[in-house]
């Protein structure tokens, strides 16, 4: 028939297409390792693989750049922190054994002498000093650099001691660098040039680790495979138990739960949505662990708005939200009141029980607005309309934002809700394009840093746009003293001021829950989603039961 392709031509066409895709996929086929991948093998060392579910890819393997949870979970298994966080928010030893101040503008860390990079080179104070100086010089975009505002320079005074200088006395710097920073191998990172530009993607001979595991294989979009290292001094027996750890990427937490229930994942790294905690706790074969929350959810009133610049209006808004109902409904009761204070109960040394939560009292709100010169119309509304922004990706906030709107209406205040996707929300926040900001911070562990960032005029997260000389002064005094009792007293005063003036409306700290297969045990839970049961020591200690 005219125009019909001849069979031979067709075969070539179809064969070519098939051959192309087959060749493309064949290029991905892995070959079996020549020898067992695990390098360790002590008495406690097992042969099992621990599969951990996450919802995002690793964006950047350079721990000074990567900001996402997956970045920090995966690179955290390779690059040790100097300090970790205890359940009361205080810092505990990890790589560092001692830390503190030589004088008000000089800090120090003493580090362990038994850490070794996976290529056999010892981890020394030289690596620590080089990492700090390189981050300060090259300004990578991660959280680490944000902690170095008052940092000047570090030097290794011996193989196990680092000292660093500061521009001004800063009583939080040693703790905060110790926790938010990490140590990278100088001999790997230095030849790459700027630490801010180094992808650390393993393309130049793989990865080098001083944590319990080292990355050996990456399939972007699917999984990250890490093999056990020969020696990890922070775990009992000195060798991680699981032979391999695989981080598997799933689209969302619901799919992670399906994977956990089907046995494709052993642990879910992300905190469970409140509504899933009870059902998963009751599911056979699964276990749920609790981790203390170290952050808070809050509403911030933009004082650039003339109405919100009045303390009485902010106080009226603070009395117009039913916090108890929010915790009960939106969080299934899995949250604790902060007493409307930035010094949350979890910060046990700082928390001031005399500061109590704003009671939900629409009548009090109305009285405050009348005192401020506003009068209600026939419908009981005061003619005040505020635009509240929140991220649509945050399902809990999306839920309570509606509750705030409804309860504020009872106080005669109209709230317009504006939920946005994350990037729009970030842009609005950065531009101050809101009346009320609703959001949360995952870790607010150090009052000096948190108050400086949140309430000083040039603070990066001063979303209230507050500039109160008395508060600024208190924060300055608190930052300068290394006397804990004095510092606690100063920050309690500052917190009282924030509470009275409603410079911030801190609503609750969420309790965090993490699910894993009951076949695995031995996890060591630490506060926050960042550490939880996937912190390096916990992962290295996790054991699969026999049979």
């Amino acid at each position: 028939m005219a125009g019909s392709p001849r069979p031979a031509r067709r075969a070539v066409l179809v064969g070519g297409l098939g051959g192309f895709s087959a060749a493309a996929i064949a290029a991905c086929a892995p070959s079996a390792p020549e020898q067992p991948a695990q390098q360790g093998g002590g008495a406690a060392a097992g042969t099992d693989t621990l599969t951990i579910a996450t919802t995002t890819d690793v964006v950047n393997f350079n721990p000074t750049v990567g900001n996402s949870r997956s970045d920090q979970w995966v690179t955290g298994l390779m690059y040790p922190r100097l300090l970790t966080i205890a359940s009361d928010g205080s810092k505990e030893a990890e790589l560092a054994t001692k830390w503190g101040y030589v004088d008000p503008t000089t800090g120090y860390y003493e580090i362990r002498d038994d850490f070794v990079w996976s290529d056999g080179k010892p981890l020394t104070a030289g690596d620590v000093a080089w990492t700090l100086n390189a981050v300060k010089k090259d300004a990578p975009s991660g959280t680490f650099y944000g902690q170095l505002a008052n940092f000047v320079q570090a030097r290794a005074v011996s193989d196990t001691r680092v000292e660093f200088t500061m521009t001004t006395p800063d009583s939080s710097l040693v703790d905060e660098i110790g926790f938010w920073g990490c140590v990278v191998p100088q001999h790997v990172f230095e030849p790459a040039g700027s630490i801010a530009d180094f992808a650390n993607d393993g393309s130049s001979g793989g990865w080098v680790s001083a944590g319990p595991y080292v990355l050996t294989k990456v399939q972007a979009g699917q999984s990250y495979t890490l093999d056990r290292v020969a020696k990890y001094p922070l775990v009992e027996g000195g060798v991680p138990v699981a032979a391999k750890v695989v981080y598997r990427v799933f689209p969302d937490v619901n799919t992670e739960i399906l994977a956990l229930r089907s046995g494709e994942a052993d642990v879910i790294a992300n905190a469970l949505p409140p509504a899933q905690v009870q059902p998963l706790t009751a599911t056979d074969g699964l276990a749920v662990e609790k981790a203390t929350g170290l952050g808070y959810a809050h509403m911030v009133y933009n004082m650039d708005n003339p109405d919100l610049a009045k303390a009485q209006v902010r106080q009226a808004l603070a009395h117009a939200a039913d916090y108890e109902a929010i915790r009960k409904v939106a969080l299934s009761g899995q949250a604790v009141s902060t007493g409307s204070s930035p010094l949350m109960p979890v910060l046990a040394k700082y928390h001031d029980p005399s500061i109590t939560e704003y009671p939900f009292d629409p009548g009090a709100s109305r009285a405050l607005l009348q005192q401020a010169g506003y009068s209600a119309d026939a419908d009981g509304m005061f003619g005040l309309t505020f635009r509240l922004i929140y991220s649509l990706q945050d399902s809990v906030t999306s839920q309570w934002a509606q509750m705030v709107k409804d309860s504020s209406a009872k106080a005669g205040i109209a709230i317009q809700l504006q939920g946005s996707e994350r990037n729009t929300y970030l842009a609005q926040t950065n531009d101050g394009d809101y009346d009320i900001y609703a959001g949360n911070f995952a870790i607010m562990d150090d009052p000096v840093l948190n108050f400086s960032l949140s309430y000083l005029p040039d603070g990066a997260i001063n979303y209230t746009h507050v500039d109160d000389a008395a508060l600024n002064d208190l924060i300055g005094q608190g930052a300068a003293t290394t006397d804990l009792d004095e510092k606690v007293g100063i920050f309690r005063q500052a917190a009282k001021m924030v509470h009275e003036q409603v410079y911030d409306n801190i609503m609750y700290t969420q309790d965090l829950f993490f699910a894993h297969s009951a076949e695995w045990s031995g996890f060591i839970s630490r506060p926050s989603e960042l550490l939880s049961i996937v912190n390096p020591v916990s992962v290295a200690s996790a054991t699969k039961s026999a049979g």
Partner: protein
Amino acid sequence: MSIASFALRRLGRGVLTVWFAVTVTFLLLRLLPGDPALAVSSPTQTEATRALLLTQYGLDKPLAEQYLLYLGQLLRGNLGTSFTQSVPVLDVLAARLPWTILLTVGALVLTVVIGIPLGVLAASRRGGFLDKAVQVFGVTGQSLFVPSIGVLLLFVVGLKLRWAPIGGAYSDGTYGGQWYLSVLHHLVLPGLSLTLVQLGSYVLTLRATLVDALADDYVVLARANGLSERRILWKHALRNALLPATTLIGLQLGFLVGGAVLTETVFAYPGVGRGIYEAVTQLDFPVLQGAFLMLALTVVVANTLTDLVYGWLDPRVKAS
């Protein structure tokens, strides 16, 4: 018109289309709310650090200069460097492309392999129960949406029946033949989802054109010459009916690529689609520009090939 000038015209049109897609993508990304420096940096970063990042990304330059620099880069075959991953975009895409090819080509082949018998079955039993059943199936298929069918398959086939894995492209720790089996096993659910959403329109188009073809004079003549119904249907009528169906496949490629983005996201399949999803959330402009360029090229090349094949199959197309 000679085949050479026909091909040249199609090629020229393809180049223009790609340039248009590149330009629109470039502009649209810069119209998105937010900026990449905010998306990648920690909230505790200062304005100075954010400004530094924008300079590093080249986003501090005027739009026209950015555009010209980008076009210059493209002409040199350089897709740029990922903002967030600090690696060449080409490497980012090369790691993901084979999976997208496997998924889309797999779905395409499955569509044709299932679609042709179904279309033939319906057309040859026009008005009968099987024809009606195929039509109901086709219309239902057209109304399917990848995420809904995907989640349903995940729950029923993945969790309840445990016949297929929940996500990913293969099981870690598999090698050689086992690895290939694992790849096929993991392809089942995403491949099925993508096939089901495009199968309906293919079957209905094929059925309609085949019904028309079976009423043509040459079929009557073939019957008069004593050819068997089977031979008439499969050797003569189907060949002609396949022409519009072939065009549909070419046209559907754009839809298929869009469907792959959704499918890969639902099934955590490590292809370009999933990469686009991640890059959108991070506002990684170079990766997005590279991915959309690649997708535009794929669609243009496929459509051009379809045109050329169609012209080769049916000389009347070239003449017009």
